[in-house]
């Protein structure tokens, strides 16, 4: 009798996990990898890894933050695997699009006043849609560096290690990402 009961308990637990945390992990991942298929795979791997180690897991953290931590590692693994030298060389220097020959802003690219309180949290939901859209427009390496630094809060040395880039590459890439993203948000955010 013990075995079937055990089995159905397992089934309930598996179902609960996926129902309670599936959407949450999926959205978390989707924002970071921008591809539905890849995000689904990462969520699946997250659940399977967590499932395997569920007996060794000690409830020091909540189930939710434990799953997030596993998911975060899977995303970083994905970045590590995906980052190739070829991609680094393919990275185009777009920073000159923003400055004239004397390296000063041009009339078209100089930041315009947005008329908001910059030190206050964003008030409109539209901002996140625009941010998402603009993030997708970044070059692949720029997007990864941006996500790892500003969404995952990893430090620069760790990001360089994961992506196999030097620290001077890092500064240049993140500089370009910010130039590009700021301009795109200024152009597309309706509130401004």
């Amino acid at each position, binding site marked *: 009798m013990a075995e079937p009961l055990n089995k159905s308990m397992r089934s309930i637990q598996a*179902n609960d996990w996926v129902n309670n945390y599936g*959407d949450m992990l999926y959205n978390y991942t989707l924002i970071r990898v921008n591809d539905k298929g890849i995000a689904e795979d990462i*969520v699946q791997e997250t659940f399977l890894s967590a499932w395997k180690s569920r007996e060794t897991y000690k409830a020091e953290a909540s189930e939710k933050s434990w799953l997030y931590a596993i998911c975060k590692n899977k995303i970083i693994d994905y970045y590590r695997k995906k980052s190739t030298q070829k991609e680094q060389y393919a990275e185009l220097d777009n920073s000159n699009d923003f400055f004239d020959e004397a390296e000063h*802003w041009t009339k078209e690219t100089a930041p315009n006043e947005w008329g908001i309180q910059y030190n206050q949290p964003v008030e409109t939901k539209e901002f996140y849609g625009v*941010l998402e859209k603009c993030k997708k427009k970044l070059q692949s390496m720029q997007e990864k560096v941006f996500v790892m630094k*500003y969404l995952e809060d990893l430090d*620069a040395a760790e990001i360089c290690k994961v992506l196999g880039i030097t620290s001077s590459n890092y500064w240049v890439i993140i500089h370009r990402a910010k*130039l590009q993203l700021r301009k795109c948000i200024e152009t597309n955010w309706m509130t401004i």
Partner: protein
Amino acid sequence: MNIINITCKKATYLITKKEHKAIGIWEGIKLKAHLAICSACKLFEKQTGFIIANAKHAHSNIELDKNVKAKIVEKMEKS
């Protein structure tokens, strides 16, 4: 004059270094001097600061496909 003068391209680059707390003392002085006279770079600093502060809260609201969920549960049960 040129010792202290930096271009806007350099200034925006140094803003990122400053934000990472990786800016040298001399670079910091040059950036401060530049920002005191360049309103465009000052805006760049404020706006990118705003984007970064809010990027952490980026979210979406898409449901994971039911079939995918069912497949995951099935694999968990089998493992």
